[in-house]
């Protein structure tokens, strides 16, 4: 009977961490721990002594984990950014999904694969949600600026909303810029004049 692998999930959002845990537990029997406090990251990892650490690719705390990979202290176990030279595709998929795995030296690829697969599926979903959220948020912000610019034009030139929008659009086309950029310039300049 093989020892259960110990996995540490580094994720400051408890809801996301719970979702990752669920996915991993569906993939197999593992001993899971989660680190949510990034200031305690290295101390927590030293205390748990995991076989695998999973972390969002773009989490700023990853750089602190890189220091652990040097394993300079005598009791530390060498850890490497996951790569099995025979399966570079898996690493690429993981990175595209936005997850990085740090793995202790010598862990067999067949024990690792179900874990990485489960993590990839979960992180792909996070990434998609995050992109959608960012797009929506940005569209809302841009809409607000464009509305303000339209309002300024309507007041200054005594025109209606459609005419104001057309004016913005024409200026953008003439200058080879986006409507939002022209609107932003107008709003910030108007701020100076008022």
């Amino acid at each position: 009977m093989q020892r259960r692998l110990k996995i540490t999930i580094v994720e400051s959002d408890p809801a996301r961490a719970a979702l990752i845990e669920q996915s991993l537990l569906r993939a197999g029997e593992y001993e899971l721990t989660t680190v949510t406090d990034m200031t305690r990251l290295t101390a927590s990892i030293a205390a748990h002594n995991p076989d695998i650490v999973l972390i969002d690719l773009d989490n700023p705390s990853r750089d602190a984990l890189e220091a652990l990979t040097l394993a300079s202290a005598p009791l530390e176990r060498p850890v490497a950014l996951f790569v099995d030279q025979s399966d570079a595709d898996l690493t690429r998929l993981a990175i595209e999904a936005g997850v990085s795995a740090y793995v202790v030296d010598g862990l067999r690829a067949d024990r690792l694969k179900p874990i990485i697969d489960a993590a990839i599926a979960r992180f792909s979903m996070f990434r998609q949600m995050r992109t959608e959220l960012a797009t929506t948020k940005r569209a809302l912000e841009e809409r607000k600026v464009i509305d303000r610019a339209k309002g300024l034009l309507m007041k200054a030139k005594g025109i209606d909303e459609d005419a104001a929008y057309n004016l913005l659009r024409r200026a953008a086309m003439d200058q080879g810029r986006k409507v939002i950029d022209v609107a932003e310039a107008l709003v910030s300049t108007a701020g100076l004049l008022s």
Partner: protein
Amino acid sequence: MTTHLPVGFLPLIDAAPLIVAREMGFDRAEGVTLDLRRAHSWSALRDMVSFGQVMAAQMLAPMPVATALGLSGAGGPLAAVAVLSTNGEVIGVSRRIEERLRANGHGFDFHDAHAAGLALIAAANGPLRIGVPFPFSMHAELLYHWLTALGLPAPAGVDIRTVPPPLMAAALAAEELDAFCVGEPWGSMAVENGSGALLLPGAAIWPGAPEKVLGVRADLADTAPEPLCGLIRALWRAGEWLADPSHRTSACAMLSGRDYLEVPDEVIDRALSGHLTITPRGDSRSVPGFVDFTRYTPQPQHAAWIGTQLAARMGLDRASARAAAMATFRTDLHSQIVHAIPGHQPRPSGFARSFDGQDFSAVLPE
């Protein structure tokens, strides 16, 4: 028709050549359109380059060297094809260490690396704990050089640890760190939020030390396709543009934008002008040459020095580490490309020595 070029960066002052190349249209003039992707860790940028999510990225100068020595990352070898900036680092201390330094009579002249270093060693209670953004960084290398030159044995007397800059303020407040060495705007932000005071600019330890490079996969540097050459030319133009003081206000406005650094213009201006506010109570100091964007060409002696330092600390063979390190800095490629630019005037290459009189070339093979 221009080639679309995804390039990764971190929201730091020394991403300026990339941001300016994009905002001033120097990229499109060279037939490429920069698609700048903001990341939040150095390891993410390295992996994005290694696994092809971006073609190139801003990197800390020691990163391609560390990868060549097998110390960092899982992808293939990397190459530095241009220097984005030299210096621009700043060393700061916690409020507690600041108080002790003042009590011991240190004047915070922000200039004398010798005096500042000895004062810092004296003010520490036990081994100095200093935060840096990444294990393979000039921040770490400059600190090791500075403190060992002043007689502090490493690693016994100094604990240099990686703390992501967004967590640095909390670590200082919790007294887990005595000091830090970071790139701007993080130093000025620590002053702004009252968590630290600035002690010394990196330029006072070693003027002209390479700080950030443009990193690509080594095989891309070998074939040097035209879009890469175009990017290198665009970055050269951006560096020349940044060197003109009359462009500073515009540069600050560009960098502060919401797609880039998202910090106030005024804080960015401190680094670009070299007029830094060093304490939360508003003391200021001027540093000529605080950060420089015009020493574009990767220098072999810089790579050799970094490789030798890393090898010595990690217990690797120094001669082979030095050779591997030098192969990552593509001096010839860069020189060839910029010398072919019409109107290119080579800038005099500064012959910079460290505060204790060391020379980067000293580690070159005979």
